[in-house]
Each structure stands twice: as structure tokens, then as C-alpha cells.
């Protein structure tokens, strides 16, 4: 903690209005001069009393003043004790950091109304308990930690931030959020600040010093659809679903909907902690969307259904221009999603519809309008900016680990490559060297120009032992994975919170993503966008807008059942792990209203004594 000026603040500053009571007290002292007339038989004795009083007049005046002062002080301390003063040192109090888990598990209703609400209520209670000098940061633990409110002492703003927190549909990295909170404290030098963790479990491997856990868990019972898939069986489809039970053994009723129409209902007996497969055969092949769901209610409804989309059998079109290259042909043909067309180098077809052109030998002077390119032993090409002059005889090949395309060499060991000769080529603009020889002449370069991906081998496969190496098909698959667009009709299935790299259709200019709730996101097609907002669970539609037509596809965002479906987490803080929930008073502040109260009592006693025993 950074030491600063000591600071007095009030929990209930309105109570200081009680200081106004001083005014009537002073007025009463002034009014006390107004004597009430009273007739007595004789004032003779009273005059004697008055003489005695006159003798003690200086003290009497002092006594009167003392009484006034004591009463004014009593009012001051009365007001102070009502105002609940807090004496704080340093940067105005202590720093709380609230880390709130927003995993899909927090939607569970085993704690009423649900875990998220319970956590939120606990957080708001903590905010309410803050003393004026305290500050709080709120960190949302999502897939990535996010600071929702930074170092604020504005309770209203903090509460608003707390109100806006919602449980997501994915898993969270609570550990990362706690580490971020610890880093924030360290950065501020506040080793004694506290981190309040609102979650339904305690992440392992944390430095638990300064951690206070607010656990919200009712050990709920839950079943989940963990998988929905299909396989083609002739003219029909068989759907395979898996259902897991994270509670006592029970019969679970399952429904299958095909294109939102209820098609079948089955019951499965699932023992505790078991997962069983349920098959749904003979589904018409025309069905596009299949949904398997659990009919019974449980503590977490989010994972009670699973989706599958039937892909139409998308194939990427690849043109292989070669005189004859069996190795290359086989390596490319390994993929089933490729429609390969071979052409002779002498008759390069003028076709722009291919996703990928593989030139084994020479690049055409005029490159096709669209489509990515792989070329082996190319000659100089003006459009690309490639200059090939002379030959080199590399003795060995080495990978450029610093390349931005290093993933293209994943699982590839180029050290064993033997290359008889290669063209000495430059590295055109936008290209990166993947392989080079001992003299650092490039042997394999890759790059992007105007949205087109190009891979250039400086040598011919026939002039090397590369096709004979076991990692040749791996290298080719790496390249094809990079070069070929995804199945644009079914871009895949990811978990909520994960991001999806959208592979743009080669001639697409704009990409639109529509979420299950209808929210639209627009991107430029190049560079290929990464879609992050995958909180919603369901089917997302992707539209690739090309010059002449639109290509439509979709992807599914599902819940990570492995991480979120088991609700049976500990509801109590195990011994020795952090500190249990109740918010603690900051060690850097002291409530001094009790002291003010004691002083008030002392003042009243003193006043009583002065009034009765004054000489």
C-alpha cells in the first residue's frame, strides 16, 4: 500500500446534521438569562446565598462556560458517533478486488434464484459494506479476464457494473482472473488488499494469500447432451448422441428434432457419472438440422440440448498443372474434400473457378483471377515480383523458425531433405522464407498478395528426395490447410466463448455473421476475420459476399459440457484454502464511532459532575 495522508471519512455523513443541535443549546444558554419571577417572604437569606455565589463568581462563570462547552462537545461527539467516522490511512482505505465467475455453470439454479444472482447479491453486499476510503475493482472471469470496474470508490458505479454482469455459456479461466487481480494488487503495491472470489468452485494452483472465497454452489443434479453427430448410411442418416449424467442414476427422456420437428423420443437409463450413446437411425437425408434434447428439467438447462448440421459434402476445387507427378497427385488426393483436376503444363486451362492452382514447373504469365497458388521450380514472374536467376545446389535444408508461417512446417523435419539443384530466387514483397539452404538461399517461400496465398518451392520435386520422405504428405496437408478455404457450408463447431477463424471464400469481399438471436456482424473478407462474440449457443449463419454471388454457410456454438455440466463442486471452502466468505473490515482503517460514543458518555458524566459538584 502506498502510504499517504491519513484520512477521516464518514459512513453516514448526513448524521453530521445533528451538529445543528448546538444552536438550540447556545440559544438555551442565552435564554437562561430570562428569569422567572417568584415572590418569597424575604430575600434576606437569598442575598446571603448570592454573596457566597459572588465570591465564587469567576469559577461560576467558568463553570457556566464549562457546562456550555461540555454540552457542545457532547453534541459534536454525538453527531460524530452517529456519522460513523472511519479513520483510514494510506490511499484512502483498502483495495478490494472482486473476481466474479461468469461460467455457464453459474446459470445453475441449485442456488436460488441461480448461482449468478447469488454471487451478484454477495458482491453487492460487499460493495455496500465498503467504507468511504475503500476502493474496489471488479474483474469478470470469462474466457479471458476482463476488468469491469477499475479502482473505484463510487458504490453506485460499482453496483451498476455488478448488475450488468451475466453468466456466459462457456467455461471460464478463473485462475487467470485471480492472477490478474493479484497482479493489479502488486502493481499498486497493495499487498494487503483482498481479492474476493465469487464462484462455485476454487481453482487449484493459486497463491491463496489474500483470497476470500464466496462460494455459491448447491451441488446440483444435472444431465447433459455431450455430443450430437451423424453418419450417412445410404439414403438415410443415423444420428449419434451421447448423454451424460452428473447426478444419481436415473432414466432420462430424450427428444430428437429434425429441422425443428419432433421426430422421436427415447428414454435412456444413465448411471451416475456415466455417459451413454443413443442412436437415432433412419433419419431422412434431406434433414439439415438435428437437435437432441433432454425433456426433463434439471439444475442446468443450458446443456440439455445438442445440435448437428448435415453438411452437403462440400469439396474444394484444385487444379494440378503438371506433366506427371504421382507424388504430388497422391499427396493432394489424400483429402476427401478436394475435387482435383489435372492439366498438362502445355494446356493450362483458363478457369478462374478453382480454389487452388498447383503449378509443377512453370507459372503462367497471366495468373488466374482468383485462387491460391503452389508452384514448384517456378521461373521469374513479373506479376509476383519473383526473379529466378541461375541455380544453386543446396547441400541441406533448414527451417526458418522465425517465419510467420512456421505452422506450415508443423511436424516437418527438413534437415533430411536432399535437393539436387534449385533455382536461385529472390523473396518477393509479402513473402517469407520457410526453408533455406546453408547459404541462406530460399528453398521454400510463402506469402500473400492481394488476398491470394502463394507458396513457391525453389526446386522441382523430381530434383529432391522430398517426395520420398514420410513428412512430405504432412507438409502438403499443412499447405493445403492454409491454402484451401474451409467448408464454407459448415464452418465447424466451437464452444461458446471460443473464437472462430473464418476462412474467406477466395473472391468474397464482405462476410456477414448472423447470430442465433439475429444479431448481425459484418467484416471485410480480407484479411480473413476472426469471430469472437460466440456467447450465444446455437447456429450462426455466415454469408460470403462475392462479386457475382453469395455463399452461405454456418457454424455451431455449443456449450463445453466437459467443463460446465458437472455441478457437484464443493460448497464450502476447504480448510487451509483461502478465507471464507464474510467480508472483513479493511486492516487499514478503524471505525472510531465507538470511541466517539465513549467520549460522549465521558462528557455527559463530566457535565453531570460539574453541574452537581462544582464548587
Amino acid at each position, binding site marked *: 500500500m502506498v502510504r499517504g495522508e491519513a484520512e477521516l471519512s464518514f459512513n453516514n455523513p448526513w448524521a453530521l446534521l445533528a451538529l445543528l443541535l448546538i444552536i438550540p443549546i447556545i440559544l438555551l444558554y442565552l435564554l*437562561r*438569562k*430570562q*428569569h*422567572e*419571577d*417568584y*415572590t*418569597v*417572604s*424575604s*430575600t*434576606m*437569606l*437569598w*442575598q*446571603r*446565598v*448570592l454573596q*457566597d*455565589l459572588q465570591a465564587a463568581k469567576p469559577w461560576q462563570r467558568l463553570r457556566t462556560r464549562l457546562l456550555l462547552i461540555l454540552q457542545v462537545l457532547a453534541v459534536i461527539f454525538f453527531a460524530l458517533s452517529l456519522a460513523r467516522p472511519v479513520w483510514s490511512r494510506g490511499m484512502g482505505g483498502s483495495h478490494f478486488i472482486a473476481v466474479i465467475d461468469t461460467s455457464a455453470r453459474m446459470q445453475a439454479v441449485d442456488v436460488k434464484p441461480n448461482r449468478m444472482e447469488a454471487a451478484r447479491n454477495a458482491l453487492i453486499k460487499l460493495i455496500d459494506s465498503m467504507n468511504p476510503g475503500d476502493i474496489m475493482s471488479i474483474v469478470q472471469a470469462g474466457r479471458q479476464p476482463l476488468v469491469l470496474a477499475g479502482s473505484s470508490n463510487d458504490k453506485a458505479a460499482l453496483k451498476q457494473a455488478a448488475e450488468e454482469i451475466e453468466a456466459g455459456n462457456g467455461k471460464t479461466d478463473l485462475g487467470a482472473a485471480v492472477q490478474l487481480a493479484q497482479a493489479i494488487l502488486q502493481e499498486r503495491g497493495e499487498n494487503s488488499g483482498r481479492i474476493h472470489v465469487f464462484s462455485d468452485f476454487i481453482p487449484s494452483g493459486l497463491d491463496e494469500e489474500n483470497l476470500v472465497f464466496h462460494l455459491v454452489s448447491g451441488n446440483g443434479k444435472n444431465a447433459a447432451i455431450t455430443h450430437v453427430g451423424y453418419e450417412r448410411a445410404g439414403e438415410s442418416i443415423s444420428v449419434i448422441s451421447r448423454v451424460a449424467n452428473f447426478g444419481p442414476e436415473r432414466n432420462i427422456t430424450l427428444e430428437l428434432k429434425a429441422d425443428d420437428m419432433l421426430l422421436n423420443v427415447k428414454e435412456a437409463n444413465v448411471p451416475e457419472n456415466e455417459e451413454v450413446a443413443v442412436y437415432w437411425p433412419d433419419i431422412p437425408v434431406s434433414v439439415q438440422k438435428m437437435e437432441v434434447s433432454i425433456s426433463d428439467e434439471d439444475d442446468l438447462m443450458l446443456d440439455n440440448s445438442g445440435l448437428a448440421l448435415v453438411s452437403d459434402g462440400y469439396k474444394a476445387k484444385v487444379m494440378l498443372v503438371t506433366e506427371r507427378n504421382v507424388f504430388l497427385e497422391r499427396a493432394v488426393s489424400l483429402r476427401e474434400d478436394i475435387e482435383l483436376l489435372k492439366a498438362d503444363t502445355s494446356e493450362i486451362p483458363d478457369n478462374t473457378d478453382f480454389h487452388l492452382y498447383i503449378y509443377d514447373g512453370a507459372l503462367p504469365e497471366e495468373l488466374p483471377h482468383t485462387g491460391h497458388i503452389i508452384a514448384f521450380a517456378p521461373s521469374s514472374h513479373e506479376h509476383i515480383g519473383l526473379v529466378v536467376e541461375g541455380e544453386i545446389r543446396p547441400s541441406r535444408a533448414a527451417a526458418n523458425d522465425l517465419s510467420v508461417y512456421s505452422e506450415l512446417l508443423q511436424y516437418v523435419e527438413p534437415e533430411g531433405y536432399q535437393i539436387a539443384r534449385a533455382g536461385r530466387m529472390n523473396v518477393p514483397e509479402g513473402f517469407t522464407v520457410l526453408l533455406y539452404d546453408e547459404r541462406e538461399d530460399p528453398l521454400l517461400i510463402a506469402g500473400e498478395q492481394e488476398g491470394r496465398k502463394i507458396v513457391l518451392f525453389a526446386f522441382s520435386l523430381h530434383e529432391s528426395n522430398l517426395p520420398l520422405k514420410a513428412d512430405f504428405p504432412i507438409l502438403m496437408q499443412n499447405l493445403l490447410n492454409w491454402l484451401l478455404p474451409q467448408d464454407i457450408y459448415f464452418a465447424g463447431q466451437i464452444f461458446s466463448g471460443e473464437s472462430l477463424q473464418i476462412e474467406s471464400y477466395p473472391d468474397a469481399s464482405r462476410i456477414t455473421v448472423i447470430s442465433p438471436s439475429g444479431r448481425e456482424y459484418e467484416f471485410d473478407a480480407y484479411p480473413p476475420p476472426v469471430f469472437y462474440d460466440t456467447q450465444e449457443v446455437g447456429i450462426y449463419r455466415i454469408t460470403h459476399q462475392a462479386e457475382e454471388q453469395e455463399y452461405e454457410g454456418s457454424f455451431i456454438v455449443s456449450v463445453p459440457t466437459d467443463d460446465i455440466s458437472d455441478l457437484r463442486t464443493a460448497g464450502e471452502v476447504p480448510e487451509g484454502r483461502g478465507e471464507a466468505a464474510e467480508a472483513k473490515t479493511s486492516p487499514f482503517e478503524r471505525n472510531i464511532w465507538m470511541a466517539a460514543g465513549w467520549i460522549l458518555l465521558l462528557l455527559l458524566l463530566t457535565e453531570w459532575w460539574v*453541574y*452537581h*459538584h*462544582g464548587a
Partner: protein
Amino acid sequence: MKTFDAEFLQKLERLTLPGTKLIQGGTGGRRRSKAKGSSIEFSDFREYTPGDDYRAIDWHAYARFERLFIKLFMEEREANITIFLDTSASMDYGQPSKGVLAKKLAAVFAYIALANYDRVGIAALNDGISDRYPYFSGKPGFFKALEFIDRLPFSGRTSLNKSIAGFTPLRGRKGISIILSDFFAKDGYKEAFRYLMYEQQDITAVQILAPEELNPRFSGSLRLIDKETGDKVEVEMSPRTLNMYQKALHSYLEEFKSTCNRLDIACIQVSSAVSLEELVFEKLKQAGIIG
């Protein structure tokens, strides 16, 4: 005064006012004897005045001089009882009033004296003699005197010294002087005592104080107004102030008592709250003021 019914008066008749100064000139050892035998010697005559016991008229002298004379030997045996009743404004104070008790007491003393064949004179005092009832004797005159007492108003300041010293009828007459007052007099009371002693009076002082004076229950800020003088005293009534008053009162009462003791004056200090019967038949008896 309704108090003075036949029964009460009958009880009073059994009482006497002891005195010392008269016994010296008397006979038979008792100043007021009901057995007035012939053994008592004739001394002188004096002319009859209304109120004198007509039984003492010397009819022989009347036959000779056609004037009423009283045998002076009787007078020698009579005592002059002078009752000084404070009727200053300060006496009209308290619940019950000091003045009322003083008047009743004056009537009691008068009746006892008359029952013992003494002569009684009553003087109402404030800053002088405001009124007086001449000496008289004989019980029949009691009710007239009572009427006189009853009618006396309370007004004016108290000045015992001035008023008693100015009471000329006392001169040359030994007797008993009874002062009924609160003795709250700015100029004191000692000169009055001395004057009475000079006039060979057996002095009885009855100091009557109201409960409000003995134990005032004041609070707050008061401007006390003197009933007699109109003097104003502003006092913050606190337990401490009241305590100081008690001390002043106690000191004043003690001083009065010691003055009386020193001057051989029979004195008693009573509260006006005490009943007349208790005062007469117990307290005054105990104090030796009546026998």
C-alpha cells in the same frame, strides 16, 4: 377563628405562662394563683380602667369617693402579658400561612393569660406599631381581642427593633413579652430583645417559618421578589444553590437560637405546617414556654 371552640379553650385553661420576674414581688410563691385568699395584703389603690376585674373594685372606696378604685394588691399579683404579633407582609406567606399560625398562637397566649387573671395587651408590628389592643384582663374580653387579632392585616416591612422599642405602654410595667414573628428583619431583632429586657420583660420568642422557607423546592432561573421590600434577587436554582440556602438558613436559625440562649430568652422555632394542638400542647410545653 373556628379553632377556638369551648373544648379547646377548656384545655387551654389548664395551662400557665411561667415567668420569673414577677415572682419576686408576689406572694405565696406562685405568680398567678387561683386561690386568692384574704391573707394577701392590701398595697395601694388605682383607678379602675375598663377590662379590669370588677371583683377587685374596692366598693368602700367607691362609697367614700364615688369613684371606682381597684385594690392595688391585686395588680401586684397580675402580670402584664404583651403579645407582639408580626403583621408584616412577610408573615402572609407559606402553605399553611405563617401569619395564620401566628394569629392563632397570639390568641392562645392571650387566652392562657386571661385564664390566669393576667392582663393582656396585643401589639401588631410591622415597621412600627401598626395597631394595638390595650391591656385588658378577664376572659370575657377574649373574644373581642380575638376579633381584633383576626382582623389584623399583613402589610409593610418588618422592623422589630423599631417597632418594639417604640411600644410605650410597656414602660414601667414588668411582665411577659411574647414575640410571634419570622424574625426576618433586615435590621435584626437584638435591639428589640435588649429593650424588652430593659423593661424587665420575660421574653418568649416564637419564630415561625413556612415549609417553603425551610425546604424550598425551586428550580431553573428565578428572580426572587421580596414580599416586603420588592428587592429582587436573581438566582440559578441548582442543587448547589439550594444547598447554600440551607446552610444560610441553618446559620441564621442557629444564630437566633444562640442569641436567645445567651439573653435567657425562651425561644422556639416552628414550621407553620405544624398543627396548633401539637404546637401548644407538645412543642411549647416541651420548650417550657407554657406550663
